[in-house]
């Protein structure tokens, strides 16, 4: 528990990051965030908003106000299941789910995500396993997540894992693609190569299209890559 000031979420000008809103606007489609009319349709549509510390509407407002630290350390962005209900319903056509993805990536890059919270751990482990083997193996990724998130809190889940294993629905041998060397060449220097391409074309970095070039669809890795 922090001080009552934290609990009441009072923030001062000195805590504001003036570059944060600009960075968000530089995302593909990010300029639309300025159009938000704070109607709350996203919060009303979101199936998990009542579990969030800030609703999606608040996240947009806080991001515009430059409250980077709060936005990047909250649980909201990790509770977002990327169902796109908010994006489909937004009257201002703001790609809210994409904004959430960007916030997840920044939270991981800046290491501001809540420690021991299983969602960012799952995203990172998934990213690592898929980058290494080219395929996700559910059993391995889940086990890694629980070990890192504090295995004592997740003992109760072993029963279901065992039952699924007995039904042949949980693999224990990690799956992998054949040409892993090719995959590691593809992913290895991606940023430098993309930067080279964008310099040649005199265009902004191709972040969004680059992410979609990975061999696997990415799934949870969308939160980290």
């Amino acid at each position: 528990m922090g001080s009552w000031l934290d609990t009441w979420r009072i923030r001062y000008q000195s805590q504001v990051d003036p570059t944060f809103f600009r960075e968000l606007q530089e995302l593909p489609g990010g300029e639309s965030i300025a159009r938000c009319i704070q109607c709350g349709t996203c919060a009303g549509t979101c199936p998990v908003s009542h579990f969030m510390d800030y609703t999606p509407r608040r996240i947009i407002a806080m991001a515009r106000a430059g409250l980077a630290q709060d936005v990047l350390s909250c649980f909201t962005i990790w509770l977002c299941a990327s169902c796109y209900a908010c994006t489909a319903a937004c009257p201002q056509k703001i790609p809210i789910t994409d904004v959430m993805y960007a916030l997840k990536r920044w939270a991981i890059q800046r290491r501001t995500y809540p420690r021991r919270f299983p969602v960012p751990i799952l995203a990172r482990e998934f990213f690592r396993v898929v980058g290494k083997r080219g395929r996700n193996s559910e059993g391995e990724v889940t086990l890694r997540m629980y070990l890192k998130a504090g295995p004592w809190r997740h003992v109760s889940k072993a029963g279901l894992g065992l039952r699924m294993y007995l039904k042949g629905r949980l693999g224990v041998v990690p799956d992998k693609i054949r040409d892993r060397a090719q995959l590691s060449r593809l992913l290895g220097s991606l940023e430098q190569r993309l930067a080279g391409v964008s310099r040649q074309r005199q265009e902004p970095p191709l972040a969004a299209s680059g992410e979609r070039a990975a061999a696997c669809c990415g799934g949870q890795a969308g939160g980290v890559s």
Partner: protein
Amino acid sequence: VSYLYYPGCCCALEATGRAYEESLLAVLARLGVQFPELGDWNCCGATMYMAVDEKRSWALSLRNLALAEKQGGNGPVDWPLKTRCCGGSLTGTVEEVGLRLAYILLREAKQRGADVVVTACPFCECNLECFQKKVRRKYPDLAALPAVFFTQLVGVAMGIPAKELGLHRLLVPLEPALARVHRGGSYAAATA
């Protein structure tokens, strides 16, 4: 599982659409789908009957529906949550949230009279089926409701053996629901 066939006047014997019925029945026979006709069905009323008397046109449709109910007919229930998110990996990460999302979907499907939920997404299937025991422990008011891949239910309807459809991999067995479906059951289709 069989479908009930309602030919309608146009496709009935010696009507303009006669070849429609003949070809349809030939194709379904080749696919191995049973297709009994709704016994003693009446005209649907089309648009003309409706133009004369609205209430009587409803009565015409109702008679067909009542006959179908008596004879047993399967179909999807109206399930407005069909595109609502199951929570994805939240069942594994933040269990409380994930289980609640699964509970909301299952309860609504059950209340709307579904005997089984069919899904297109493997995450939806896993959350609604594998985690169902946990969901029911947390929310005891929920009765068991099988959830399967839509291909599994299609396979059952086509008479493919259970083993080939992976029905033995289910943690919530489908068989009790199938017994009901044979007498005319309903399913809830999830598309998210």
